[in-house]
């Protein structure tokens, strides 16, 4: 049996049960195109009346968007009443297909899941062939929300009593993901607030430095951080109650007193204990490395299973569960990032330091983590912990041995000190949750000061004044290029090429051999600068083939769209999106006319040259 149903059979089955019109969601654009090709030899052809209806509807769309008049798929679509719709197509072609679908001319559309959001493109039936989608280079299971968004296309109000979602398997499908998606409640959503350089510049342009914290406090991010802080505060309240029996005794702070005494006692018996030199950052972080905590490591992530101090090691140690299921013992120093995420972890005294169920659960959760996690900013307390000094006291200084509460202290010390540690940890977490946005903002300010966009008093410098108008991705790279006068003397085509390579963020392979030497050497310069900025801003891909495509379109005004498409392996929809995004980037440069008239002028020439043919059809 074939691993999945043949597209022609699929459509036949749907037609047979009157389940058309249908949207068939496939994993990739290629799969959509191949499905269309499968109809090349199919016998089923639409009756003439329906073919004419499609032709007439298409004609109306073509009148508005002439670029699709010669579209190679038109004859197939007319003959079989089935079309493909994905990001590799021109927007105008997609509009045409949407229009045909709305008018009921088509029986089915093969589409990728990008169609799921927003576009009013309903059908009687959706066919689902996958349970995961590609997100940032990795396949991720569909969320419940995504499954429902896809299923939401099934059933047209006013045209259907019911809608159908039909699952048909392909080799890598996980039916459980889909049944959970159909029957579950959509996931809660979380803020993804980040602080960008343009945000900092624009906020500081309009507000005083001391007003910013209040503005950041209005974000959904802070709203959600507060929710978490309140949860911890409630835990603190409970702890507070539990601590009541361990209040002041003969000494007010008997816990510390006993702790110091106990240390001194031990110190005496092992004179030659290893001396620990720990950076204060390490000490501060160690509080957070508790079982269940998600941490970032040099390579990948892990969950802490336990923390301990080992006699032989100078630094504190942690046991970490890695995504592959490996359990490793490592010095706490290898933890690069402490994430604001803790999973439940039922501890257990022996390997693997938690119960088997916890282990499985943690392991599973680790693979399910989103690609981006909020980082816990760790505040390093200035005053170092006083203990090591106290140890030099001689035992004779302690009242403990003869104190009346000695046995009570000895008995309660372990539990009381544990609770107090937990209290302190919660308090630190709460403080971190309340102030983390502000700290992140400060970090950005530091960078902008270092580069001279802000004065030490956090006022905009002359450069900051214009730099705030660049509000796109990679803004730091772009403004630094402008300051380095990298674009002086660049013609519109070269400027377009550079902007295209900065704007493009897709790593789909493409091929385009010819690039002018001017663009190539400038691109080399841009790469160097981007590399040197990488501690402050992720560098863009800066692909030469992408730069070359955009340059070519601008440098040769007689080049037709078809000609451009033939010169590269990129899909035409991708070329369109590339140029459209480049237009946006260039028009940001155009806003700098007051301070950089030459650059703005080149940008506006480039804008005029790009906007022709297909790129003029839509706003």
């Amino acid at each position, binding site marked *: *049996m074939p*691993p999945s*149903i043949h597209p022609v059979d699929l459509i036949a089955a749907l037609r047979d049960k009157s389940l058309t019109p249908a949207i068939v969601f496939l994993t990739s654009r290629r799969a959509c195109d191949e499905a269309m090709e499968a109809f090349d030899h199919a016998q089923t052809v639409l009756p003439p009346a329906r073919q004419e209806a499609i032709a007439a509807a298409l004609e109306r769309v073509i009148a508005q968007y002439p670029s699709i008049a010669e579209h190679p798929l038109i004859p197939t679509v007319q003959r079989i009443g089935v079309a493909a719709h994905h990001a590799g197509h021109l927007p105008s072609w997609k509009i045409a297909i949407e229009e045909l679908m709305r008018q009921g001319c088509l029986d089915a559309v093969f589409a990728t899941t990008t169609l799921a959001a927003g576009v009013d493109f309903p059908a009687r039936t959706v066919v689902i062939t996958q349970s995961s989608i590609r997100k940032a280079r990795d396949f991720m299971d569909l969320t419940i929300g995504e499954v429902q968004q896809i299923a*939401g296309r099934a059933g047209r109000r006013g045209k259907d*009593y019911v809608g159908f*979602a*039909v699952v*048909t398997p392909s080799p890598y499908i996980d039916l459980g993901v889909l049944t959970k998606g159909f029957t579950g409640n959509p996931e*809660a959503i979380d803020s993804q607030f980040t602080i960008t350089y343009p945000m900092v510049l624009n906020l500081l342009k309009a507000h005083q430095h001391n007003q910013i914290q209040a503005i950041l406090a209005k974000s959904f991010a802070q*709203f959600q951080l507060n929710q978490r802080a309140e949860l911890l505060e409630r835990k603190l309240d409970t702890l507070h109650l539990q601590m009541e029996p361990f209040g002041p005794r003969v000494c007010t702070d008997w816990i510390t007193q006993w702790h110091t005494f106990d240390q001194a006692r031990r110190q005496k018996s092992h004179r030659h204990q290893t001396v620990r030199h720990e950076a204060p950052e390490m000490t501060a972080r160690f509080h957070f490395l508790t079982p269940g905590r998600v941490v970032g490591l040099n390579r990948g992530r892990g969950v802490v299973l336990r923390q301990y101090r080992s006699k032989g090691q100078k630094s504190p140690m942690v046991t970490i569960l890695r995504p592959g299921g490996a359990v490793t013992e490592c010095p706490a120093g290898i933890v690069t990032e402490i994430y604001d995420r803790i999973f439940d972890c039922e501890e257990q005294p022996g390997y693997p330091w938690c119960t088997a169920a916890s282990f499985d659960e943690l392991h599973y959760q680790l693979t399910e983590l989103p690609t981006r996690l909020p980082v816990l900013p760790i505040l390093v307390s200035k005053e170092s912990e006083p203990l090591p000094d106290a140890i030099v006291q001689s035992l004779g200084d302690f009242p403990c041995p003869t104190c009346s509460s000695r046995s009570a202290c000895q008995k309660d010390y372990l539990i009381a000190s544990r609770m107090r540690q937990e209290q302190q940890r919660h308090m630190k977490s709460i403080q971190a949750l309340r102030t983390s946005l502000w700290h992140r903002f400060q970090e950005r300010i530091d960078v902008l000061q270092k580069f001279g966009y802000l004065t030490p008093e956090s006022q905009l410098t002359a450069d900051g004044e214009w730099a705030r108008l660049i509000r796109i991705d990679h803004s730091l790279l772009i403004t630094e290029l402008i300051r380095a006068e990298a674009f002086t003397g660049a013609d519109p085509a070269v400027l377009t090429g550079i902007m295209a390579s900065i704007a493009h963020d897709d790593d789909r392979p493409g091929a385009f051999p010819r690039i002018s030497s001017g663009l190539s050497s400038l691109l080399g310069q841009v790469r160097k600068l981007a590399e040197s900025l990488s501690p402050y801003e992720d560098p863009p891909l800066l692909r030469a083939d992408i730069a070359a495509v955009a340059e070519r379109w601008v440098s040769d005004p007689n080049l037709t769209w078809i000609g451009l498409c033939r010169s590269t392996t990129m899909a035409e929809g991708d070329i369109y999106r590339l140029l459209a995004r480049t237009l946006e980037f260039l028009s940001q440069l155009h806003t700098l006319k007051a301070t950089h008239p030459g650059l703005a002028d080149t940008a506006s020439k480039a804008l005029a040259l790009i906007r022709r043919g297909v790129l003029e059809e839509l706003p």
Partner: protein
Amino acid sequence: MTTDELAQLLAQQPVAILHRLARGRVQRHFRAGKRRLIDMLIQHSTNNLAGLESDLQALIEERQSRVQTPVPPANPVPPRQTAPHTSRRPTRTHEPESTEPGVTLTAWLEGLGVPTPQPFVPDPWQEEALAGLAETDVVVSVPTGSGKTYVAVEAARRAMSENRTIIYTSPLKALSNTKFTEFSKIFGSDQVGILTGDRQDNAQAPILIMTTEILRNLLYDAASGEIDVRLDTLGLVILDESQYIADPERGVVWEETIIFCPSQAKLLLLSASIGNPQDIADWLTSIRPSPCRLVRHSKRTVPLRAGYLHPNGKLTPLFRTAGIPYGHPGQLHPEAKRLFLQYEEDTLPSGRTRR
């Protein structure tokens, strides 16, 4: 045992056993379907197939001994120890098997057809959203295809009658274009403008359509003192598809837009179903001049039925019931279950059955 034999033996095992084998061997094994799991297991153990085999045998024996243990009815053997919270994962939940037969295909297909045209009557939730908007900000969270556009259009109409400017934003240029066409048809093309990163058409019209980034930029400029009359008369800001606030790259733009939205303008957030719309509404209440109204429901207007189409062309209902058994992912139709298991068996990893 040869690789092929081992693959076959693996294929005969329930997926749960494969997952246990994969523990510590294969990354992300929870993601993989049975077939892929087998591929990955064998690939991982190419140098130590014997190890894999002996682990597998041990698991099989363990399972058989459990199955064969006679179960006295009064004192049933507890199921394999699983912590209570693992039940969040549907693949592991073991719902009691219902013995009732599933719905028939004919019953499942019933209702197929075209309803007679009805005069347009707004849904109660649409009225509720519009009524709310007369006083305050509104967050709408309803399933895809429920009719959020109607709320946007009517709200725009009302704001326009008060000589207010309306800004409508969407996350995608393609959506903006569609809405531009749609709104131009409804309100007349002189009443609707569109702003994109590089182009402005009819930018002084009372209804302006743009992507959310463009609106954020307008608000930046206004905050730093640039005068924009359109913002002075702004009466309504509609953020369509506002579940984008959770987009890893662009979500921040929605937050900024909402934070900087002038307080004299009403906010209308239109979102697909999300799990925590109340949080969004509470957040708006905490930062906006008046308490936000939440309009939500999760019932689809056109009911959904789920089916399973086997590669051989056989169609069956996916669940026991004709409708979706909300909250019960395990209620698979016996026929669908049988066919899918057969599919998993048939698509063996050795490559014999590939096209």
